[in-house]
């Protein structure tokens, strides 16, 4: 288990810290998640996608829950990823992630802000609309367009 922690804890911590921006809270989330995984080894199976991708999604969701100070929206067991997240090796994974980063950097500012507010700051789309003063439909469209760009990067 410590080997799994060694391999993925850094990534999980980075994701959770991006959301929470608080070292103590972030470490609690990461420790809790890995401890939970240690206690529930059956919760992850290869048909749930790659362990790294799965941990990334789960730790992000846990961090959002902490941020919103409410109970988890998704139970961990419900998070299933496609087999396509099982990339061949770390090099390929880094290549994909780098492509996504590049796409995010190149997004129009409004789209990037909308995605960051939704994905990493835990705001609902209506909260984003309220904060930015943009119509709800516009916020949705921006998020959708940004995700389309990300998907295009994943395919290419």
């Amino acid at each position, binding site marked *: *288990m*410590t*080997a799994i*922690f*060694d391999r993925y*804890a*850094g*990534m999980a*911590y*980075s*994701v959770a*810290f*991006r959301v929470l921006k608080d*070292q103590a809270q972030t*470490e609690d989330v*990461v*420790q809790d998640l*890995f*401890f939970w995984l*240690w*206690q*529930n*080894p*059956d919760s992850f199976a290869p048909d749930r*996608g790659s362990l*790294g*991708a*799965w941990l*990334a*999604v789960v730790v992000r*969701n846990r961090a*959002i829950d902490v941020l919103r100070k409410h109970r988890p*929206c*998704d139970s961990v067991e419900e*998070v*299933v*990823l*496609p087999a*396509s*997240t099982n990339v061949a090796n770390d090099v390929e994974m880094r290549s*994909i*992630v780098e492509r*996504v980063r590049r796409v*995010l950097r190149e997004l129009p500012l409004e789209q990037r802000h909308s*995605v960051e507010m*939704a*994905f*990493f700051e*835990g*705001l*609902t*789309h*209506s909260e*984003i609309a309220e904060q930015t003063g943009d119509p709800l439909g516009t916020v*949705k469209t921006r*998020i*959708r367009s940004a*995700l389309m760009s*990300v998907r295009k990067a*994943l395919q290419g």
Partner: protein
Amino acid sequence: MTERTHISREDLDLFAMQVLDPQERVPIEAHLRQCSECRAALARARGDLAFLTMSVEETALPSGARDRFAARIAQSPGSPEPQNPAVELTPVRRRSGVWVWMPWAAVAALLIVATGLEIKVQNLTREFARQAETIRTRAGSDARARRVLDLLTAGDAQHVLLTSANAHPVPSARAVYLASRGALILQATNLSRVPESKTYELWIIPANGKPPVPAGLFRPDASGNANLVLPPLPTGVQAKAFGITVERSGGSATPTLPIVLSGTASGE
């Protein structure tokens, strides 16, 4: 929303991102419970978001985080080695299902791999033995050929022409020629000495009537013996006869008369 009217991709994305308001989530959760197609689509959306999640800039894990985690595991009930958090830790009581069988599966996989490697090693060993035998056979043939060649070309080899008791030694030469390979060996005996500026030259007289082909230069030793072994020759020149002339030291393009020794090729 029914099973026939699936959730839009946009809403699935927003659901996966957890940015929908609670009242919007409820009907989607209800639909997902009964629609495998939308659950699969949700998994795909989460897969894409996983890569988006992992694109965050890396933040270093706080120092001691690993030790704190190891200590937490060690102190938890069921830990096999609570006193040593640094070692690999695995829960005992909670292991079941896939995790229980994984070590055995790994052992089985290793056995399969080992068996495959053993078969490969055996095949390679057999191939190595076969190659070694071939090399030994060829080495034996090569050694014999080398000895024949050494004997033919050795300067200190004794050359003896056996004739009737009363016969006087006369110059003679014996050529062995294989036209298809352009290979030739000539052994001459009792040759007269020639001046330094001169040399003997062997000629192949082609069977097709073409001009004589120069087949090599040679000079006899003090005993009048000379060898010409595998001089460079074109292949496929069928010989009608062989002739030996005396030429200037560098050899000639055409034979200079007289022909001091000649012989008709067998079969002509």
